[in-house]
C-alpha cells in the first residue's frame, strides 16, 4: 500500500514540477485503457448486446430466419401456463437437490479425511480431481452404460445380490438419480478440495485450544469447523446452485438419440434442455429467449436464498463468535486448573 502511493504519483509529479498544467490524466492512462479494452469490447458484442437483444427477441415470435413478429408479453404468458416448462423446473430442482446435498456432505467428509491424512496427499488430491476435468460427454456415455436397464453393470450387480433390476433410464426417478449421480461424481472432488483449502486456513491454535478444552471431535466439528467454514460453504453452495440450474449435457447425451431430449416422459428434461429444444430444434427463438430469462430469475433467486440460509452477510461475526467462545472456554479451564492447583 505504502509502496503504491510512493511509486504511482512519481510519474505524474515529476513533469508537473516543471510545467504548470498537470497533464491530462485520461490521456496519460491511454495504455491502461487499451489493456483492459479487449474484454470490454468482446463483452459488449458477445455479452451485453446479446442480453439486451434477448429481451427484444423474447417479445417476438420468430423462427430465426423470417420476419420477427411483435407479440409483447405473450411468450411469458405462455411460459407461465406451459406445463412442460414447469415440469422442467421441477426436474431441474429435483436433480439439483439429489446431486448437491450428497455432493456437499461427501465433500466435507472427504476434505476432513484429507486434512488429517499426512501421507499420499498429492495422490488423493489428483485422484479426486480427475473426474472434474474429464469430458462430460465421455463420462455420461460411461454412466449411461452402467445405468442401462437391461445390460447395465449396476443392474447386473443388483440382480446378482437378489435385489432385482431398476428401470434407471426409463422411470422418472431412475432418470433423475442417474443424472444426479453423474453430477455428484464429477463435482465431489472439486468441492472437497475447496473445503480442504478452507480447513487449512483455520488456525491450528483454535483446534489446539479446543483439544486442551477437552472438546470431543464432534463438538470440534460443529462448533469450530463448520462456523469457520461458512464463507467457503457459501461459495460452494452458490456455485453448485448456479451449475445445478444449468444442467444440460448429461440429460442430452443420455437421451440424445430418443425422440425427446429429456428421456421418456420428459423426466430428464432440464430448463436448459428445454431452452435448447425450443430455440434450436423447434426454431422458436422468442420462446427460447423467454426461457433464458426465466432461468436467470431462478438463478438470482436461488443465489439469494443460499446467501440467506448460510448467512453470508454475517459470517465474519459468526467466525469471530466461534473463536471467542473457544477463548472463553480456555480461560475458564485455566481458572479451574489454577483453582485446583491452589487447593
Amino acid at each position, binding site marked *: 500500500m505504502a*509502496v503504491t502511493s510512493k511509486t504511482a504519483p512519481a510519474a505524474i509529479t515529476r513533469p508537473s514540477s516543471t510545467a504548470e498544467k498537470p497533464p491530462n490524466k485520461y490521456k496519460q492512462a491511454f495504455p491502461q*485503457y487499451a489493456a*483492459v479494452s479487449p474484454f470490454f469490447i468482446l*463483452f459488449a458484442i458477445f455479452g451485453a448486446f446479446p442480453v439486451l437483444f434477448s429481451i427484444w427477441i423474447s417479445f417476438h415470435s420468430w423462427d430465426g430466419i423470417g420476419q420477427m413478429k411483435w407479440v409483447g408479453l405473450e411468450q411469458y404468458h405462455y411460459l407461465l401456463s406451459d406445463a412442460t416448462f414447469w415440469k422442467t423446473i421441477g426436474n431441474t430442482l429435483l436433480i439439483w437437490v439429489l446431486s448437491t446435498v450428497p455432493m456437499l456432505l461427501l465433500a466435507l467428509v472427504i476434505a476432513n479425511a484429507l486434512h*488429517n491424512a499426512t501421507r499420499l496427499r498429492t495422490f488423493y488430491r489428483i485422484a*479426486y480431481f480427475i473426474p472434474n476435468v474429464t*469430458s462430460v460427454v465421455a463420462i455420461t456415455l460411461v454412466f449411461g452404460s452402467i445405468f442401462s436397464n437391461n445390460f447395465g453393470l449396476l443392474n447386473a450387480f443388483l440382480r446378482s445380490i437378489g435385489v432385482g433390476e431398476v428401470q434407471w433410464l426409463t422411470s422418472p426417478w431412475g432418470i433423475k438419480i442417474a443424472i444426479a449421480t453423474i453430477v455428484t461424481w464429477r463435482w465431489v472432488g472439486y468441492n472437497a478440495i475447496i473445503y480442504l483449502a478452507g480447513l487449512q486456513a483455520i488456525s491450528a491454535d483454535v483446534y489446539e485450544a479446543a483439544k486442551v478444552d477437552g472438546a470431543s471431535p464432534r463438538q470440534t466439528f460443529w462448533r469450530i469447523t463448520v462456523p469457520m467454514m461458512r464463507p467457503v460453504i457459501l461459495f460452494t453452495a452458490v456455485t453448485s446452485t448456479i451449475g445445478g440450474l444449468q444442467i444440460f449435457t448429461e440429460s442430452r447425451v443420455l437421451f440424445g438419440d430418443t425422440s425427446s431430449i429429456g428421456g421418456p416422459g420428459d423426466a430428464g428434461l432440464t430448463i*436448459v434442455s428445454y431452452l435448447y429444444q425450443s430455440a434450436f430444434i423447434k426454431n422458436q427463438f422468442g420462446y427460447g429467449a423467454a426461457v433464458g*430469462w426465466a432461468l436467470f430469475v431462478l438463478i438470482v433467486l436461488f443465489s439469494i436464498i443460499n446467501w440467506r440460509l448460510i448467512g453470508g452477510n454475517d459470517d465474519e461475526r459468526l467466525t469471530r463468535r466461534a473463536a471467542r467462545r473457544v477463548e472463553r472456554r480456555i480461560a475458564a479451564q485455566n481458572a479451574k486448573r489454577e483453582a485446583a492447583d491452589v487447593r
Partner: protein
Amino acid sequence: MSVERIRTAVGHIVLMFGVLVSLFPFYWMVVMASNTTPDIFSYPPKLLIGSHLFENMGKVLDNIDFFGSMLLTLIASLGVTVLVLFFDSLAAFAFAKYEFPGRNVLFGLLLATFMIPAQLSLVPQFVTLAEFGWIGSLKALIIPGAANAFGIFWMRQYAKGAIPDELISAAKVDGAGFFRQYLTVGLPVLRPGLAFLGIFTFINVWNDYLWPLIVMTDPNRLTLQVALDQLNGVYGTDYSMVMAGALMSVIPLIGVFLIGARSFIADLAAGAMKF
C-alpha cells in the same frame, strides 16, 4: 496413541474407497473399449480388460473423422487459451498495478458480468454470429471466448501479490512504456499464474459441448465432444466402439491435466478462497 492410529487408518480406508469410486468409471471405460459389444452385454458382464482395443479404435476412425475433429478442437482450445492468456493478463496487469480514472468502476462492471448465466445469451449470440456469417467457422468457437472476467479477476489477484512495485518503477526509470513494462516485468513474474489459467481454459474449451453443438452446424466439422455424441447417437448399438472413442477423447485431456496437476489444484483452491 493407538486411538489416533486407528483414526488415521479409518481415514485412509475412507479415502481409498473414494479414490476407487472416482477412478472406476475410467477403468470401466477401458474394459468396455477393449472388449466386443456382445461380451460387455453378456451376463455376467466381463469385468476385465480385453484384447479388442485397437480393433475398436480402428472402427472409430472408420466411422467419424476423429483426427479432423481432434485437430479442430485442438486449434479452438489453443486459440482461445492463447488469446485469453494475453488479454486477461494484460488487463489484470493494468487493473492490479496502475491507477487510472475509472479503474474501480470498470473493475466493478467486470465483476458484475459474473452474474449473467451463459445460457441467457445463447439465442441472441447465435443470431449475432449468424449475422456476422461466422456460424460453422472456427471464429465462432474462438472469438466470443477470447477474454473472460474470471481470468482477469483471477490474474489480478495473482498480479497484486506477485509483482513488486519496485520492479515497475525501476522499469519506468529505464524509460519503458506500459506495454514494455508488461512484457519485461509482468509476464515473467506472472508465468505460474498463466500456467494455471492456461490449463483451466484449455480444459474448459476442450470439454465444452453446448456451444459447439449450436454453432458448428456442418456435420463434417464437429468438435470432439459433439462428434463423440454423434457416434453414440448413430452407432449406439456398438458400445465398445463408442467407448473407444470416449477413451481416445479423454486421454489427451488427462495428459494435459496431469502435467500441471499439482500446482493447478492448489491454485484453484486458492482462487476459490479469494472469492
